[in-house]
C-alpha cells in the first residue's frame, strides 16, 4: 500500500467482484491519500470502539449482530460498493500499523477485529458464508450415514444442554480437530470425541473466525517487525506521528500514569477508599484489611488500581506488607509477594509498566474459590450485592435501578448508576475504568470541599 499526497487514482475495477467481507490476506496494491489514511482509520476505530463497549455491556450475540450492523452503516458504508470495499481494506491496514506496536494494543485490536468479522459473517447469507469458507480453503467434510446416526443421541444432548428443549439435531455436522474451534470447545457447545469436535452447520462461523483470528494475529507480529525495523524511521515526518496519535486519542487514557487528581498517601488511604473507590476496589480493599490476605487475582486488580491512583511503589510495598505480614509473616512476604508488587511497577522481570485493569477485563475475569476480585455487579449474588450497595448508602430506589441494570447484564451501567447515586451528579460518559471512577469522584469531592485555610 502506497501513501500518496493528493493525486487520486481510480481504484481498479476488479475489487468490485471480490466478496463483501475482505479477509485482509494481502496488502492491497492501491494508493491512498494521506487525508483518507487518517479519516478511514478513525471511522473504523469508531466501529471497533462501539464493539468494545457492546461486549463490555454483556450484549448477547444477536444484539451484537444488530450493533455491528448499525455501527458499520453509520461509519463505513458508502453507496458505491467499490469505494466501501477500499475504505474497509485501507482502514484495516492502517489500524494494523497503529495497533501492532505493543502487546496490549495488539490484543485489543485482535479481539475487536475478530468480533467485527464474526458478526459481519453471521449477517451474510449461507451462500456468501460458503464462499468465504471456500476462500480460506477449509477442507472439512460433513459427517454422514452410520457415523452421524451413531452420534445422534449425544448430539441431541449437546443441543438440549444449550437450552433447546427438544433434542432435534441439525442436518449438517462437520468433523473437525477440536483445536480448530477453541471457542466452541471452551463453552462446551460441541460434542467432542477422540480428538474431533462435531460442528453444526450453524456453528460454521467458529471455524472461519479461528482462521481469521490466527491470520490477523500472525500478521500483527510481522507488521510490528516491519514497523520497528523500517517504517517508523522512514516515515518519521509523515505517517509516524499520525499512527502514534491514533491509538491514544480515540480510546481514552489507559491510566498507567496517575494524573493530577491522583496522588494518595498511606495515611489517608482508608478515607479515600471509603469515599472514592468503585465497589470492586472497595470490596478488595476491605477484604485485605479484614483477612490480611488476597489471592493473586485480587492482588493484581487492586494493586494496579492503586498504582493508577498514584500510590508510590514504596507506599504500595508498605501497604501490602502491613497487611500480609499479619498473616504470613514478613519473611514470606518478602520472598513471595514483594517481587510481584515491584513487578507490577515495572521494577522486575520484563520491566513492563503494567496498566490498571479496565472494566471490560474485570467483568470478563472468572474468580474462583477463595477469590474476591472481579466485578461485583457481575460476580456477586443478588443478596451480597444489595448488602454491599447498602453499605455505600444507596437508597432503595437507587438500588432497584442498579439491580435492574444488573439483571440486564449492563454491569458498567449498574456501576454508573451507583456512581450517580453516591455523588448525586450525573455521569454521562459512563464508567468504563475503575480509575476513571476514582478520578471523577475526586473531581466532584474536590469541587465540593472549599480549599483548606492556609
Amino acid at each position, binding site marked *: 500500500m502506497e501513501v500518496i499526497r493528493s493525486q487520486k487514482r481510480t481504484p481498479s475495477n476488479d475489487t468490485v467482484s471480490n466478496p463483501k467481507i475482505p479477509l485482509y490476506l494481502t496488502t492491497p496494491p492501491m494508493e491512498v491519500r494521506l487525508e483518507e489514511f487518517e479519516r478511514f482509520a478513525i471511522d473504523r476505530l469508531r466501529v471497533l470502539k462501539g464493539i468494545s463497549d457492546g461486549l463490555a455491556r454483556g450484549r448477547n450475540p444477536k444484539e451484537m449482530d444488530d450493533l455491528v450492523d448499525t455501527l458499520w452503516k453509520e461509519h463505513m458504508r458508502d453507496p458505491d460498493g467499490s469505494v466501501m470495499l477500499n475504505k474497509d481494506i485501507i482502514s484495516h491496514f492502517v489500524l494494523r500499523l497503529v495497533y501492532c506496536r505493543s502487546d496490549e494494543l495488539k490484543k485489543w485490536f485482535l479481539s475487536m477485529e475478530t468480533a467485527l468479522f464474526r458478526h459481519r459473517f453471521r449477517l451474510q447469507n449461507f451462500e456468501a458464508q460458503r464462499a468465504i469458507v471456500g476462500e480460506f480453503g477449509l477442507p472439512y467434510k460433513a459427517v454422514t450415514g452410520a457415523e452421524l446416526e451413531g452420534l445422534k443421541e449425544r448430539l441431541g444432548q449437546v443441543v438440549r444442554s444449550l437450552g433447546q428443549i427438544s433434542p432435534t439435531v441439525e442436518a449438517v455436522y462437520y468433523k473437525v480437530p477440536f483445536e480448530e474451534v477453541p471457542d466452541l470447545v471452551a463453552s462446551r457447545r460441541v460434542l467432542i470425541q477422540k480428538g474431533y469436535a462435531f460442528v453444526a452447520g450453524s456453528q460454521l462461523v467458529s471455524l472461519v473466525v479461528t482462521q481469521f483470528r490466527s491470520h490477523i494475529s500472525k500478521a500483527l507480529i510481522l507488521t510490528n517487525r516491519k514497523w520497528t525495523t523500517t517504517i517508523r524511521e522512514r516515515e518519521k515526518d509523515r505517517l509516524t506521528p499520525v499512527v502514534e496519535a491514533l491509538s491514544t486519542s480515540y480510546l481514552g487514557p489507559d491510566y498507567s500514569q496517575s494524573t493530577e487528581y491522583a496522588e494518595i498517601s498511606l495515611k489517608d488511604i482508608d478515607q479515600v477508599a471509603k469515599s472514592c473507590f468503585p465497589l470492586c476496589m472497595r470490596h478488595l480493599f476491605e477484604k485485605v484489611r479484614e483477612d490480611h490476605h488476597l489471592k493473586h487475582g485480587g492482588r493484581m486488580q487492586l494493586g494496579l488500581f492503586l498504582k493508577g491512583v498514584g500510590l508510590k511503589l514504596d507506599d504500595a510495598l508498605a501497604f501490602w506488607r502491613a497487611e500480609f505480614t499479619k498473616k504470613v509473616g514478613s519473611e514470606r512476604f518478602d520472598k513471595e509477594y514483594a517481587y510481584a508488587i515491584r513487578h507490577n511497577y515495572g521494577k522486575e522481570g520484563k520491566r513492563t509498566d503494567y496498566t490498571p485493569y479496565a472494566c471490560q477485563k474485570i467483568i470478563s475475569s472468572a474468580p474462583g*474459590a477463595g477469590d474476591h476480585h472481579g466485578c461485583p455487579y457481575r460476580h456477586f449474588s443478588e443478596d451480597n450485592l444489595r448488602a454491599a450497595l447498602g453499605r455505600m448508602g444507596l437508597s432503595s430506589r437507587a438500588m432497584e435501578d442498579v439491580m435492574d441494570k444488573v439483571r440486564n447484564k449492563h454491569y458498567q451501567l449498574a456501576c454508573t448508576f451507583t456512581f450517580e447515586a453516591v455523588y448525586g451528579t450525573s455521569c454521562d460518559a459512563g464508567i468504563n475504568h475503575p480509575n476513571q471512577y476514582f478520578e471523577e469522584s475526586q473531581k466532584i469531592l474536590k469541587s465540593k470541599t472549599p480549599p483548606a485555610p492556609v
Partner: protein
Amino acid sequence: MTREEIKSRGEDEKMMDAPQINNNPKPEESFNVNYLRIYYGNLFPYTDLHKWLSYGHDGKHPGCDEYYFGRREFSFTLENDVYLRYKSFKTASSMEDAIKSSFPYKIDIGAVYSVDPDKRHAYSQTGTNVFTPVERELVFDIDITDYDDVRYCCSGADVCSKCWPLMTVAIKVIHTSLTEDFGFKHILWVFSGRRGVHCWVCDPKARRMTNEQRSAVAEYFRVYKGNENNARKVVLMGYSLHPFLARSYVDYLKGFFEGELQATQSIFSSKDKYEKILEMISDEDIQSELREKWENSAARSSLSEEAISLVRWEQLKNTLQSKKHKAPTLRMCVEEIVFTFTYPRIDLEVSKQMNHLLKAPFCVHPKTGRVCVPIDPNNCDEFDPLAVPTLPQLIEEINSGGSRMDVDDDEEDSDRSLLGKSIKFFRSSFLEPLLKSCKEEIETSYKTKIGKSKDSFSW
C-alpha cells in the same frame, strides 16, 4: 550466592564425589540438604527424565532435532530460596551435574523455547523478539486446598484419607475426558508431594497447542465458578447436561457423592453443614421447608451422622423432584449440588499459559519429605498419599544395604525397593509407549521431508 557462581559450578564440576552419608540423622527431620544430596546422588532418575523430555530426539535418527532437550527451560529453587529461572542443559549428564552440585529443593520444568533459554539475552540483542515458547505439555494442577469449603476433616495444606478421595475422583473425571473426548494417549499423573496432583499431557498435538487452545481445554473443564461472594458456585443451564458432564456425573460424581463423601464428610449432618447446601437452592420456600424438617429431626435422632446425612439428601432430592417445574433454576439443582461438592477444582491459570512452570516428577516436597511419584490413573483408588516414600525412609533403605535404583540391572530387586515400583511404573506405563510413538512420528515426518525434497528434483 549469585546466579553466575551457581552456573559455573554446575558446568565445571564433572562429577561429585560419593556423598557423605550421615548415619545419624535426627529422626524428626524429614527433609534437609544432606538427605537431598544422597537422594540426588543415588536415587533420582536422571536418565528417565532426560528420555522423557527428549521425546525421541536422541540423536540416533537422521530426522532428530538434537537441540530439542537443550531448549527446555528448567528452574531450580535452592535451599536459601534463591530462585533460578531459564536454566537449560544440552545433555542428560550436564543436567545431572547441575542438580548434583546445587541440590535444588525444587526443580520446575518449563516450556521448550525457540532458542536456548540460557542464551536468551544474546538473542534479545538482535531486537527481533525470537525468544518465545514453542512447545509445552498441556498441564493441570489440582490442589486440595481449593476444596476447603467442602471438607470437614482437614483444611489448608493438610490432607488425610478422608479427603484424598476428592483428588481420586478428580483424576478419574479429567483422565477419562482427556482420553475419550480429546483423544490423548500419553498422560502422566504425579503426586505433588503434599496436597494435590499434577497432570502432564505429552501427546505431540498437546505439546504444540497455542495458549488459546489450552485455554479452551481448560474452560471445557470449568464448571465450578464459585467466588467467595456467591453461594451458588455451580450453575448448570439447559435441559440436559453436556455429554462430558453427563458421563462424569453418572460414572463418577453421583456415586462418590452418595457413597464415600457421605461416609467421610457427612455433609448434611449438622446445621452449619446443611445451611451451606440450602443456600444453593434458589427458592426460599423449599429452603425453609427442608430447614424446618431437619431442625425438628435433629433432637430425636439416634442415627449415625452418616445415616442422618443420607436421609436428608434423599429428602432434598424428593422435594426438588416434586417442585422441579416451579422455576428453571431448580431444574438442575440436584446436579449442581453434586458438582459443587465433587467436581474437580483445577487451578486453570496453570493450564492456560505455555510458559507456566510445573514441578518435575520425582522431586521431594520440602515440607513433607515425600517424593512426587507417578499415580496410575487406572488404579488411583489404591494410591495413598500417606504411604508415599519419604526421604528418611529412602535413606534408611540405602543405609541398610538397599541398592541404587538402577532398575535395568536387577529387575527383581527394584520391585522391592521403595522407589523402584514408581520408577518401573513410570517407564513401562508412560515412557516406553511415549517414546515408541515419538520415534514413529520422527520417522514419518522424516520420510515426508525426504519425499518432498525428492519430488522437487524429479520435475
